[in-house]
């Protein structure tokens, strides 16, 4: 069982959360010249690291806020969590 620290509610059980994928991918800016490769990278391509991974989680059965989690994909250790507009401390 993962114990995830919601930046709004504190430590809660994994059961209350749902996953939102890689937090580092950014949608191409509206108005910019966007190549098809940019779209490919945004929609399909992922770094998929073994180790530290920035990802989105949703406290869906709690405060319903989205936030960021820094987690190890090999050990499942959670290093840090933060709000969407913040950066990790660790």
């Amino acid at each position, binding site marked *: *069982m*993962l114990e995830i620290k919601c930046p709004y509610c504190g430590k809660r059980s*994994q*059961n209350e959360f*749902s*996953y939102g*994928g*890689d937090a580092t991918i950014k949608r191409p800016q509206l108005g910019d010249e966007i190549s*098809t*490769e940019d779209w*490919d*990278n945004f*929609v*399909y*391509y*992922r*770094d*998929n*690291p*073994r180790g530290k*991974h920035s*990802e989105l989680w949703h406290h869906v059965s709690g405060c319903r806020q989205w936030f960021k989690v820094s*987690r190890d*994909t*090999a*050990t*499942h250790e959670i290093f840090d969590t933060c709000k969407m507009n913040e950066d990790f401390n660790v």
Partner: protein
Amino acid sequence: MQKYSVFSLVKNAFTNHENWEVAWKDPEPKKEYDVIIVGGGGHGLATAYYLAKEHGITNVAILEKGWIGGGNVGRNTTILRSNYMFDSNAHFYEFGMKLWETLSQELNYNVMYSPRGIINLAHSDAQMNAYARRGNSMRLNGIDAILLGRDDLKKMIPFADFSETCRFPIHGGLMQPRGGTARHDAVAWGYARQADSMGVDIIQNCEVTGFDVNNGKIEGVQTSRGNIKTKKVGLCVAGSTTLLADMLNMRLPIEAHVLQACVSEPVKPLLHNVVTFGAGHFYCSQSDKGEMVMGGDLDGYNSYAQRGNMPMIQHVLTGGLAVFPNFSRLKMLRTWGGIMDMSMDGSPIIDKTHIEGVYLNCGWCYGGFKATPSSGFVFAHTIAQDQVHELNSDFNLERFHTGKIIDEKGVGPKPWIG
């Protein structure tokens, strides 16, 4: 190679079974090979076998970080089927089903192919319509499919919950009678033994640590047991594909996720088919030992750990108990996890790459076991001929650029939802 038969069994019984030949050797890596396969799982072993058998290429090495068959080929729930709607999938997996039917004879190794039938349960009229459509598509592609009604199923799985007041009443189901199971380890061992007998070197405890690429061409592989030269490399490493692709500066439309499975204590014969619950993620078959082999959803977050967490086991078994309430009294024997190379459309990638001589076989999601023979067959063709076989021509990398994706489930590029 020693042929396995009832006579060899009797003959060896006289010497207390102490004189059997080893099934495959344990060679030192040579300096150079024509083809190197990275990954000694089902797909890697099958690829080496078909390279030797179909294409006469026998100067081949299989490099395996651990021991052969220790990854997903030893961790799956052994289900075989070709009940797909899309043509690309249907043709590819049906080709595989035909290979499965004669695999034990071909390999002289009992893979215990058991065409016990796979039944997908339907729990609404809409789902029955969807299954009728899928069944029709399958039959148009020459695949066996039968639409079952509620009364048919009452005879086949009488212990399922057929009450009319339950949350997801059973309306019927779609069955592929030729679908079923096989003994997963035997598949790996059978391919290994035949490949070895034709001259393939199976090199275990040999981790690939880098690639020698020069002018866009592969020249060799760096390993924990020294550098090995080669002109062709096939990657068959499932969940670890991204780790090797990183060494080749290739970014892939893949995420690694953990999928768990579990077995109960063994009980007397009860469940004679493979059954999937249609209103949640749960599927089950009974092994020859009597254990209920069960599986379901991904844990749902990126993971390279070959173990999962209890919430998903609980979620899957909750679905299981909804359809088979009598399973509540079974004791759990063990659970385990494997790393799935989840592609962004749920279909595999078997293709050439931007590096000459590097071939990619990945993206099997949670369906790799049934594809072992067909994947090995077409990947061997792709490597030997340096061009894709017609059966894997749609499983290319280019589709994530052109948009011709094969999204059988229709969930989009969010692997953890599928």
